């Protein structure tokens, strides 16, 4: 009796839900939840999960992917902050054009980015030809993967640091100067600490993007295992060999790392907004 009334109750509740809730929930489940569950189930039911996830080729692919992405995003942490600083604080010719160019990596399709980076940094390309005399090879090496990752993730740092720098009250700096702090002291002791949450958020966003990047890196790299083969390419190769389980296991490892990154980014953003309130 109670069971019957509770089901009718829930049915009434379901019909009372506005149609846009049903549409949103339905679309989200269909597009995101069910596919994610399918991936976890496929990988989780694989008896060889650990063997595949920690096979030497997979470990080397994680190494190339995560270490290169980390170096690329830290590099952008420094230079992205510098670019944001220059764009906010200084005036120079064609500044608006430079500012707009920062968005190119967002707008340019990744395969085009890969194509042009591979060409420019190839031994007879514009930049590559300048580096060959020094014995530096960029295209089709791990360094090339790094350059592609730098390209892909630069915008994130600039675009997260820029607004924070813009809204920073001038009075704080001026009082530091008036108390006798030098230019560099003012920057490193006063300005930089309040920029740190934004810088770390930008670096984390860029890192997450670089780790998952496929289009530009697959074209720039030679995709040789144990040399410059990245994890997304490994997933792709497994699928090409119809090894769905193997692809699912490595894909699952990448998904878990993406979820952890998402969590870290949310925490960093919470830290940044706390700074705002103070």
């Amino acid at each position, binding site marked *: 009796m109670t069971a019957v009334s509770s089901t009718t109750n829930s049915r009434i509740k379901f019909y009372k839900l506005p149609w846009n809730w049903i549409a949103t929930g339905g679309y989200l489940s269909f597009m995101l*939840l069910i596919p994610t569950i399918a991936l976890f189930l496929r990988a989780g039911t694989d008896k060889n999960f650990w063997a595949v996830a920690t096979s030497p080729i997979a470990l080397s692919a994680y190494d190339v992917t995560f270490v290169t992405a980390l170096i690329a995003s830290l590099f952008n942490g420094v230079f992205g902050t510098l670019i944001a*600083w220059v764009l906010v604080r200084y005036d*120079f010719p064609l500044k608006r054009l430079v500012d707009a160019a920062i968005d190119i990596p967002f707008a340019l399709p990744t*395969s085009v980015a890969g194509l042009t980076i591979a060409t420019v940094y190839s031994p007879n390309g514009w930049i590559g030809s300048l580096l060959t005399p020094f014995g530096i090879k960029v295209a089709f090496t791990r360094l090339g993967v790094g350059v592609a990752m730098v390209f892909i993730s630069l915008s994130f740092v600039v675009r997260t640091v820029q607004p924070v720098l813009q809204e920073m009250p001038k009075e704080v700096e001026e009082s530091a100067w008036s108390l006798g702090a030098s230019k560099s002291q003012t920057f490193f002791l006063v300005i930089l600490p309040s920029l740190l949450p934004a810088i770390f958020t930008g670096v984390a966003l860029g890192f997450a993007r670089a780790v*998952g990047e496929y289009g530009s890196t697959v074209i720039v790299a030679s995709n040789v295992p144990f040399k410059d083969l990245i994890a*997304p390419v490994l997933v792709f190769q497994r699928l090409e060999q119809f090894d769905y389980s193997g692809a699912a296991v490595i894909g699952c490892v990448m998904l878990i790392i*993406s979820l952890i990154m998402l969590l870290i980014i949310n925490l960093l953003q919470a830290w940044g907004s706390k700074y705002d309130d103070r």
Partner: protein
Amino acid sequence: MTIAKEKSTTERKPLPKVQIALIAMALIYIALVIFIPAINVFTQAFKNGFLPFFSNFADPDFRSAIQLTLLIALVSVPINTAFGLCAAWAIARNRFPGRALVISILDLPFSISPVVAGLMIMLLYGRQGWFGSFLERINLKIVFATPGIILATAFITLPFVAREVIPVLEEMGSEQEEAARTLGADDWQIFWRVTLPNIRWGLLYGVILTNARAMGEFGAVSVVSGNIAGKTQSLPLFVEQAYKQYQTQAAFSAAVLLGLLAVVTLIAKAIVEQKTQIKEVE
């Protein structure tokens, strides 16, 4: 008065040498990473004049790639616009438990690798997938065909519209909508006459970003498409294929079209940003 005073102090203070050095470093970095590769796309495509570029249009695979790319955008952008509005409305106008979680789930496609997104679609609709045998029985091809490509694109571009519209809806508040309701307007009228005019720039911004990503998506599409030239090869896939086969001219001719898409996207973005800024000042 105060503005003039502030300006004079900032202009007097900075050390020009340091300033010039910093600007130079920033510009060199941007040039190496962004400017030179971007300019290279256009110079490589037209280095032998415009004729090789136009002669590529004679290639049926090239034309089919352009058509497929347009079709992908034509289907996936409206679907995600409609859904994005729906989701933004549900999230911005209601407070419910798990709201933050729903927003995080909505953001998933931004942090998942495109290849993993494609893999998920394979695991559901591929031959070995959950629905694989069912799809085979009803003779519906999703994977290695256009529906799968559109599905993958819709997955990747899902968050853009909702992400841009939610903050605008929240800022707008619901007072105007409630006023319209008390005056007897129905949901549809409220949406078209009150809400849409208020959120139009945010919505347009989201649509521009969705379209750019939909036309340019490579990773997810390349997993599910099978990359059959003339059939399931979109323009970004054509670029890679041509480059791999040492048809550099064809690769750059396709790349320059996608480069133009990026330029148009950036200009449209700048226009919308300017419009919204002007509105804020008013």
